[in-house]
């Protein structure tokens, strides 16, 4: 594996290898919660926060527990447990010490547990053999990339709110079509750098 500068990984995770636009991970909450910019930004922040820390935690669990014991194949289940526990812990902490933030994120935090982008990032980090700094950059970048995608989508959806859309395409239908068009636009970034 070539040593890629963490900064490159960071930007690549936002633009060229965006979790939603090039990997289509975390689609369910992306489609369900992208009707308003404000709420999607809240969800994006929460995802970024959880992604950053779970990537780091999973990195340590994988390299310091699973690898030495030779049980790497358990990574799927272990990563899921770590993500679920961490999300719950974060919810408790935010609820207690940051009531305003909890109020904004409250409903989205538990949703993050089942956001496949989070698990995806942890698994990609292993497949691509990233070191700690690279993983951190990848985690933060992926979170910001996910936020960028969902906020952009929310912006577009707010714009088209009052436009006539064929009945059968309202809601998730048109959102998926727009996602496809956005993904095409994101391909434009892909010539800049590739990280896989």
């Amino acid at each position, binding site marked *: 594996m070539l040593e890629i500068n963490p900064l490159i990984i960071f930007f690549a995770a936002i633009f060229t290898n965006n979790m939603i636009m090039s990997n289509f991970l975390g689609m369910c909450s992306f489609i369900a919660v992208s009707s308003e910019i404000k709420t999607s930004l809240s969800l994006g922040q929460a995802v970024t926060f959880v992604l950053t820390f779970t990537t780091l935690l999973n990195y340590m*669990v994988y390299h310091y*527990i699973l690898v030495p014991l030779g049980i790497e194949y358990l990574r799927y*289940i272990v990563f899921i447990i*770590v993500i679920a526990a961490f999300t719950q*812990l974060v919810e*408790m902490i935010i609820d207690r010490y940051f*009531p305003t933030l909890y*109020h904004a994120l409250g409903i989205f935090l538990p949703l993050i547990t089942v956001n496949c982008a989070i698990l995806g990032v942890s698994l990609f980090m292993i497949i691509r053999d990233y070191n700690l700094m690279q993983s951190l950059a990848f985690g933060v970048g992926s979170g910001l990339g996910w936020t960028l995608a969902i906020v952009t989508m929310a912006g577009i959806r707010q714009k088209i709110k009052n436009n006539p859309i064929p009945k059968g395409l309202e809601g998730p239908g048109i959102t998926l079509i727009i996602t496809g068009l956005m993904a095409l636009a994101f391909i434009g970034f892909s010539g800049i750098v590739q990280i896989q």
Partner: protein
Amino acid sequence: MNDILTTVISISAISGTLALLLSIANRTIANYGDKKMLINNEKELIVDGGDTLLSSLIENEIFIPSACGGKGSCGYCKVKVLEGGGEVLPTELGYLTKEDQDGGVRLSCQCKVKEDISIEIPEELFNVKQYDYTVKQNNLVNSTIKHLVLDLPAGKEIDFKPGQYIQILTPTYKGNDEEVYRAYSLASPPSQKHTIELFIGLIPEGICTTYVHTLLKEGQKLTVVGPFGDFYYRESEREMVMVAIGTGMAPIMSILRHMHENKIHRKCTFFFSARNKQELYMMDKIAEFEKDMPNFKFIYSLTRATDEDQWEGDKVRVPDLIKKYLENGANKEAYMCGSPKMIDSAAEALVEIGMEEAFIYYDKFE
């Protein structure tokens, strides 16, 4: 063999550590200590901080109606929070109107007690308790209605007003995988505190009625919460008009039994309708009322009388029965129970003959 051991031990250790961490967090971070709860500016309770308002109230045996059991999906457990509930959560918004939000109404299953809190709940809910009844009797009284008689454990009593209802907690059974509460009116008089009686009609595919009709046997336990409801007998001098169809007979029966026992001889007319003679029930009890209560009159019709019935009387629906036999509604009050459609058209008929809407009390069986 070693692989299996290593796998099992490491997974257990990782899960165990995380579970331990979460338990510690739950004890420290999510523990808000004891908090004071002031109810209706008079009753003060000490509750565990961090719990939801609904579970704190249930722990103190104050039962707020909740059909979904605290999952935030029925919107029944509304409580007015005067102070200390924090901001309204996004999970509550779908169930609260603008007026609710302005008035401090919250969903008690979502609102957590994190500081001293002051709430307002209807006075009668203080009386609401959970009871573990034993089925004493479960017999058919006509082709579709069961007369359910439930006994309380020794030493326990229920206080209610004639006309109120209770909720039965239907357990899970084959074909029904979630516990649900269903409301049924009490047919017994309030003087009877140890045993309650209900009339439960079979509704095709009804979760609770199917359970009562096909699975519930004598001697079994049944959880009941109550009493609830603002439909009940009012003391006054007005002449009474009672209207019911089907199991709507239950609360009317409770009121009539209460009046019979207490020798209340207000002028009272009870309009009832059934499809045919087979659907009539409790007729011996009503005959007893007619005999002992000089001012009580029972008027009924059979809307689809069969040849066997040899019925010469009225064949019209209840609203037309009212129009035929009741000349004017002034200075009268009405007690009506049954389907919403019947109640709406009967109420219309009563208003037409001059009854004031404020004196029409009803319990719509929806």
